[in-house]
């Protein structure tokens, strides 16, 4: 059993990771070509522009904030959504072993956070993701819109965090197993990004930019 776990770990560290990177890069290239290969939105609307405020770039950043009056309408999904995204980014970019891996791949290096902090953030992120799932199943509008892909995407996002936490805490599974499953779940997530709603990790930025650009030309900070 342990030999199988070791073999699996070697595979996900080697060929598995390579395959995932190739599919991710190829998939992203196809999707980006599909999206930005389309004709650009008409620019003639700008001819009457009286730009007073805002820009596409500002909207990219502004949409990280909760619009005025909206928090009370959907507190759970806003707070859990924000915490989960921040937590995910913190754990991914500021956990020392992740930094070492990224350093191997990119040559870049930066200071991570102490393990005790990462542990706290991971628990908070796991909890936030569960709240997001509860919202998806409980909030009328979200439940109505959700399809199988939405739940699959949630699972694919949750598993790397869960398995990473199990490996980090050395609980539930032998370390080799936990690490192998962690890497495998990360690779599944990487493969899914271009072909599912996870694509929003890229297109949320262009979408926000288009929104902000058109509204700012009309003088509205969107």
């Amino acid at each position, binding site marked *: 059993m342990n030999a199988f776990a070791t073999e699996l770990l070697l595979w996900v560290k080697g060929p598995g990771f390579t395959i995932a990177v190739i599919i991710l890069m190829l998939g992203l290239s*196809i*999707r980006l070509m*599909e*999206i*930005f290969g*389309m*004709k*650009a*939105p*008409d620019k*003639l*609307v700008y*001819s*009457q522009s*009286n730009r*007073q405020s805002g820009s596409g770039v500002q*909207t*990219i950043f502004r*949409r990280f904030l909760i*619009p*005025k*009056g*909206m928090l009370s*309408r*959907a507190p759970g*999904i*806003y707070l859990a*959504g924000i915490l989960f995204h921040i937590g995910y980014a913190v754990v991914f970019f500021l956990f020392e072993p992740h930094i070492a891996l990224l350093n191997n791949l990119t040559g870049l290096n930066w200071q991570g956070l102490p393990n005790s902090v990462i542990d706290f953030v991971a628990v908070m992120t796991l909890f936030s993701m569960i709240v997001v799932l509860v919202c998806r199943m409980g*909030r*009328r*509008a*979200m439940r*109505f*819109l*959700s*399809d199988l892909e*939405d739940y699959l995407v949630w699972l694919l996002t949750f598993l790397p965090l869960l398995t990473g936490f199990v490996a980090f805490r050395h609980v539930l599974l032998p370390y080799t197993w936990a690490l192998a499953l962690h890497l495998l779940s990360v690779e599944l997530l990487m493969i899914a990004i271009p*072909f599912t*709603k996870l*694509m*929003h990790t890229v*297109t*949320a930025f*262009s*979408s*926000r*930019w*288009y*929104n*902000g650009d*058109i*509204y700012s030309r*009309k*003088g*509205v*900070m*969107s």
Partner: protein
Amino acid sequence: MSASFTRAINVLREQVDASVASFFSACTHCGLCSEACLFYTETGDPNYIPIYKLEPFRHLYEQDFTLAGRVKHIFGLSPELTDVALAQWSELVYDSCTLCGRCAMVCPVGNNPGAMVRKLREGMSVAGYAPDSLVDATQRNVHLGSAMGVSYKTLKAQLIHLETDIGLTVPVDVQGADYMLLLSSMEIVQFPEFISAVTRIFHQAGVSWTISSTAFEASNSGIQIGASDIAQQIVERTIKGAQALGVKTVITPECGHSYTALRWEGPTLMGKPLPFKVRHILEVVDQLHQQGRIHFDPNTKDTRPLTYHDPCQIARQGGVIEAPRRLLNAVASDFREMAAHGKMNWCCGGGGGVSAIERADPLRSTVFKKKKQQIEEVGVHTVVSACSNCRMMLEQGIEDNSMDVEVISLTELVADHLVSVEQTVRDVA
């Protein structure tokens, strides 16, 4: 497959650009747009979730423009978009979206569902699924020049009446005027006081302006129904009228969609920049005030508690947010903002052509609850606005709900507080 359905699909394909592709690819089904749409908040019906109203369009986008969608379609995992599906979506695309754009202000990924509903309507109208009453209004707009069938004769009759009332002449077909004022049919028929108000304001400011006898109508039903070819014809009529008189700026009246139609959609519809500037009447009046060309007596401000209803197409979709507030504060002493205002205002429920859709009356009446609640929260009996369609919707809603509230036009309010410089000097002395 019918010929109109095939044409509709081709039209819809034409509507897809990089922004649409980005919007559809970014949606995570969080459903937060629903919290910004009064059709959802006031009914709780999930069919009215903004992004859901776009299902046929999303379906077509995925199936025709994405690899994953094509693969799904080949393996039978994604059903074909059908004529029946489009027909079933008519109510969601027309009756339950006022193109107000509030959803675009809150979407965490920056999606713009309102703009995409506008695009989806292009396909729906070609497929023949636009509501009959909107089709009729559009036909009148094209053939008679006005969505309500108002002719220049009617306008002339109104002008004669109001000229007698105010003792001023309304300039018509003046060559070389700086400004050409457009009017909505509703203003001509139901709210002619607006024309009087503009005449008095411009008279005091010494503005060189005119109305065109051939291009006076501001309404553009082509935008509301989603027929760009028709919308283009209507814009072209305005361009011809403005060019014939050699005006520099065209002013759209207190009408929300006509402002958006001409200023923001006009150049795209024509495929080139417009040969004149487009400004909303409030922008012009505010500028005159700031330039000191019109005067109000600071001692005789309107003391009634009042609030301002931002017309969606003028504020959120048009950018005219500060001008009305500067004007209101200049003439009124107890102006109270609703909690959600400016770019976050709630729609009256009748924009985007919804007011012209008879079958939407019960739904419109239901969603008016939001505006009722807002008015009651600020505790006023006077609501000021700057769109004759909003004014109609507000008056109807107020009557239906037996509220003790009057609705007035901001331009008219401003005109009622004009004083001459001599008068001001005399008062001060």
